[in-house]
């Protein structure tokens, strides 16, 4: 009897700090632009730059209400899952330009002040186009300039930290920086590892409707 009563109280308390969103559709989208620095950590250290563009679509949203100093200043923590279609490139002089598309999946945890942490999982496609004229010998023995590149599978992840100005202020921007790793395949039946750093800026679209 005692056990049943205590578990009932526990169940009742379990969700009390979750904000009820009955009838309210709280939507959020991000459009982001990021600079990428692909880093070779072997000597000689070699840094190749690139950019990526992504749109984030929130799939799941579970805000949490933490106790504030006063009932008039609630501390809302946002817990979100996004899908982030991302296109980008990394430029390697006299070697290749890697063009990629990744439908990233991201979990973002935004603290009540607007600081957030984000964990991304990436599986995507990469095309590496040669960055110098490519010549191929023809059947008649002459050489002809051709377009050439390689198709690759990308697999990786990144950890990002940032600040979402749209959370507590009315500025619809967010900044982020982070680091990640990705592997491309195949290169002689092997995965080739890349480590990179990223700095980005996002425009945040928030919309609440009944």
């Amino acid at each position, binding site marked *: 009897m005692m056990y049943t009563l205590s578990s009932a109280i526990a169940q009742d308390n379990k969700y009390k700090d979750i904000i009820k969103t009955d009838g309210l559709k709280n939507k959020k989208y991000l459009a982001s*632009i990021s600079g990428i620095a692909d880093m*070779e950590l072997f000597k000689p250290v070699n840094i190749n730059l690139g*950019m990526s563009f992504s749109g984030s679509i929130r799939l799941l949203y579970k805000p949490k209400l933490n106790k504030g100093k006063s009932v008039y200043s609630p501390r809302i923590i946002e817990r979100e899952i996004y899908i982030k279609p991302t296109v980008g490139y990394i430029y390697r002089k*006299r070697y290749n330009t890697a063009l990629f598309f990744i439908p990233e999946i991201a979990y973002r945890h935004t603290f009540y002040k607007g600081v957030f942490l984000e964990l991304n999982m990436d599986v995507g496609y990469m095309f590496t186009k040669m960055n110098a004229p*490519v010549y191929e010998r023809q059947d008649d023995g002459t050489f002809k300039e051709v377009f050439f590149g390689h198709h690759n599978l990308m697999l990786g992840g990144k950890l990002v930290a940032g600040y979402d100005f749209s959370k507590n202020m009315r500025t*619809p921007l967010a900044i982020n920086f982070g680091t990640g790793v990705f592997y491309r395949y195949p290169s002689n039946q092997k995965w080739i590892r890349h480590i990179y750093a990223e700095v980005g800026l996002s425009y945040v679209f928030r919309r609440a409707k009944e």
Partner: protein
Amino acid sequence: MQLNFKILSILFFAVAVLAGCSPDPKPNGDQVDNYYFVKVDNVALPVRVCGNIKSDVAIIFIHGGPGGSAQGERGNIYWKEIEKYYKVIYYDQRGSGVTQGNVPPSEMSIEQFSEDLDNIVDFTKQVAKASKVFIHGASWGGGLATYYLLDTTHQNKLKGAIIESPAYDIKNGAVLSIQWMLHKADSMIALGKNLDYWNNCKNYYSIHPILTYNEFKQHQSYLTQVYGLVSNGANIQVQSISTPKVELALGYSNAEFAPATLTYEGQSIFTHLDLTSKLNQIKLPVMLVWGAQDGLLPKNNLAEKFVTNVGSLNLKYDDTKYLLSAHLPHFEEWQQFDVDTKAFVEANK
């Protein structure tokens, strides 16, 4: 909102400028420094054309390894002098260096590498505009050059070949190299130096009497310690060069991949490559260079066998030269090598 767009615009252009621009050093005066890829099947071999833009003589450098790269080769001071007079073609072999592509192990054969080299020779004549072509193969590259020259059609495309410590007979060369190493280990033991280590070294070879890809790394490590690869590092001089912004991880991966997969007549090059009986097919002018201190492919026996068997009536070889060099004389005695190369090219161009 306007402010936001300004911020976005500034950030966009800042990143775009950083990503797109890095200065490429311009070659001086009559020098050329162009970068290309030569596509063979599904592979893009990186090719760098450097040197005297006015020269119709080109030297194609064939790197060693197997699995090495020619990307840093130009840093050796030896090439500075050569590039003053001739064009020099640096290329990376299939599945080696920073060559891009997905090469199946079945394509990692000396036969396919020779076909790739033939593409480079034709490219040099047509695109790099050099009608008089020489090849310079060092170590494994010397073995590949030797194989390439077995075909008369290939010989007809060239004016001559510089063959440096060639791996034309790895099968017997590996045995000689182990003997050389054991002799050095005995010398170290006799001197009372690091007895445990050198006894372990001797024990290693008694357990692994045949040198395959699996033992190659350890063998090179032992050779390095007794100066069997580089006799005197102080003699090596380098110059700073620009290099392409490559994936270095790929280079390290290929350095393992190529030696593990390379074959001759379907068998590993380490245990089966021996071109001695075919050397008589080589008829074009050859300059053979061998370092007297070489421990990887010891000069005694191997150089003599090459000289005895090669079919060329125009063979330039001086047994009394390169006494201070180990495996790569163009690193260690580059002044002498410069003089000899120029004399050989001028005599046969």
